[in-house]
């Protein structure tokens, strides 16, 4: 009984966590909820677990529950991986902001600016292909 209550509490925490994650990743929430609800059921009806375990070719119900826990761990691992990605995206934005803030182009090197002074567009589409160029073969 003590073990059942302890496991149920842990599974409840997993459910709460899954619910809190819904806005960020619905897939993780759905997977976590499914796995922990199955866990709940088997914790309180171990004989059913044994029956299902025998049905799918696993010897004991306890082993099946162990596998369910392994599944939860994998889902949590996936969620952690995805969270790391989000962190990395933030790092990217930060690094990009720093890079762009420190970049100061030398106006004298910008061709378009220099040519704007002579009011000549730098690139103009000619009526036909330019010398040394084939006609447009684009798909």
């Amino acid at each position, binding site marked *: 009984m003590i073990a059942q209550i302890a496991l149920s509490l842990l599974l409840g925490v997993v459910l709460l966590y899954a619910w809190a994650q819904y806005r960020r990743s619905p897939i993780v929430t759905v997977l976590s909820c499914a796995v922990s609800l199955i866990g709940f059921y088997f914790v309180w009806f171990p004989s059913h677990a044994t029956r299902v375990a025998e049905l799918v070719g696993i010897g004991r119900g306890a082993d099946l529950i162990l596998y369910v826990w392994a599944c939860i761990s994998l889902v949590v691992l996936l969620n952690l991986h995805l969270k790391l990605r989000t962190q990395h995206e933030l790092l990217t934005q930060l*690094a990009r902001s720093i890079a762009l803030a420190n970049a100061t182009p030398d106006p004298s090197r910008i061709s378009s600016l220099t040519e704007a002074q002579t009011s000549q567009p730098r690139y103009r589409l000619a009526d036909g292909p330019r010398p040394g160029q084939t006609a447009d073969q684009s798909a």
Partner: protein
Amino acid sequence: MRDDHFSSTWVVCPAYNESSAIVSVITRLRQAGHDVVVVDDGSSDDTRQLASTLATAVVSHPVNLGQGAALKTGIDFALAQGADVIVTFDTDGQHRDSDIPRLLDALVRNQADFALGSRFLSEPLNMPRMRRILLWGATLFTVATTGLRLTDTHNGLRAMTRRGAQALRLRQNRMAHASELLAEIARSQLRYVEVPVTIDYTTYSLAKGQRTGDFVMILLDLLAGKLYR
């Protein structure tokens, strides 16, 4: 901008430890009259110093983030400079600056927002067989997932209008950015066109380029990107 001329064209060159190739690449682009922004992606060699003497501007990531992140930074920079057209160009020497006018022509002639280089519309030079098979697989994958009708999905030479660049939401930092960019083009529903370009396969560019195992990582990155908002 859709017009018969572009007054401000910026070439974005992402660079990571490219000190042996960058000088000739940037010199040729500058001689052709292009504004070039080199995005140094946290190189540990003297790529940044070499680029700063040649390029119109150098933007430096404080840490290495990946080619996709470097492209996005370069595109953001070019947009901030008021670019009408942005060209992406690899810094390992595999692209030819003479292909850029063709891309710009294709944008105007087809009233397109994206002109994508394709090595398979012209005769590829010295392409290893394994590379050909991998690219063929990548093309099938892209056609299946985005519905775009393309012949070459991993070509770093592209041109896009300002409107096209602004429509892209790029989040993939590493090699999966090429597939993501195409998915974004499909999502934007803007017009795209493929243009034949030549890729020069050298020992150096092949060593710098993607390896077979990278394609597995690209698939995993794309999958993870789909799982998370």
